[in-house]
């Protein structure tokens, strides 16, 4: 079965990205595949390369990057949501003349069309919501 995941929140205000990653691992272990993981709403902040964590905490962004690399899964950020929250790749940083690009390369900035496309190709779309 093909799954697409939609994630709405990330640390430290939400653990939706953690729950989503646990689910994604179970999908692969169960012999299924993942078409795409789409980070929407506040979850786009996961790609902010400026985040600094306490030394005893593990980066959820880094865990997603490793997972995506190991299983050839695309990690997408909604461009409109990312712009609103100051998460910019180099192209957007130059387009809008902002001081610096901060999005990690493992996360690709895409349009909402990719969310719809991911939903159409998948047998199941699973949303990991955030309470805020």
């Amino acid at each position, binding site marked *: 079965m093909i799954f697409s995941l939609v994630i*709405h929140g990330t640390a430290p205000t939400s653990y939706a990205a953690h729950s989503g990653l646990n689910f994604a691992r179970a999908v692969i272990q169960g012999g299924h595949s993942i078409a795409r993981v789409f980070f929407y709403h506040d979850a786009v902040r996961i790609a902010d390369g400026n985040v600094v964590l306490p030394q005893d905490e593990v980066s959820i962004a880094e865990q997603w990057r490793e997972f995506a690399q190991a299983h050839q899964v695309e990690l997408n950020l909604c461009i*409109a*949501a990312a712009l609103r929250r100051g998460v910019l790749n180099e192209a957007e940083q130059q387009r809008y003349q902002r001081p610096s690009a901060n999005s990690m390369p493992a996360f690709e900035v895409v349009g*909402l*069309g990719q969310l*719809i496309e991911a939903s*159409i190709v998948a047998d199941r*779309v699973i949303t990991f919501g955030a309470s805020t």
Partner: protein
Amino acid sequence: MNDKSLLMLMRHAPYAGARATEALEAALVGAVFDLPTSLLFRDDGVWQLLPNQQADALGIRTHSNLISALPQYDITNLYVCSESLAARHLHQDQLTQGVTLVNPAEQQALIAQHSIVFND
């Protein structure tokens, strides 16, 4: 283009952050992709359906203008949860026109009918 259909659950108040606006944007893109798209407003999402909102004072988009524009995107299937309205002492007469009142059993059927269900 396909035999799929999209139901978007709209559960957040219009100005409690950007959630409602971003959910609506996703629904609009669904419709642009020729995906038959329906919206179900429930919980605090029912507040989105009140007309005459004026968000200019906040310097942000007026959400009800986006709601009014939905027919231009061929999104005409709008549903609202009867229990969410009652819990907030709202009545269908107060809402924007063309919204169908649905009880919990009808919402269950709506969710079952659509191949893709998004939560906001």
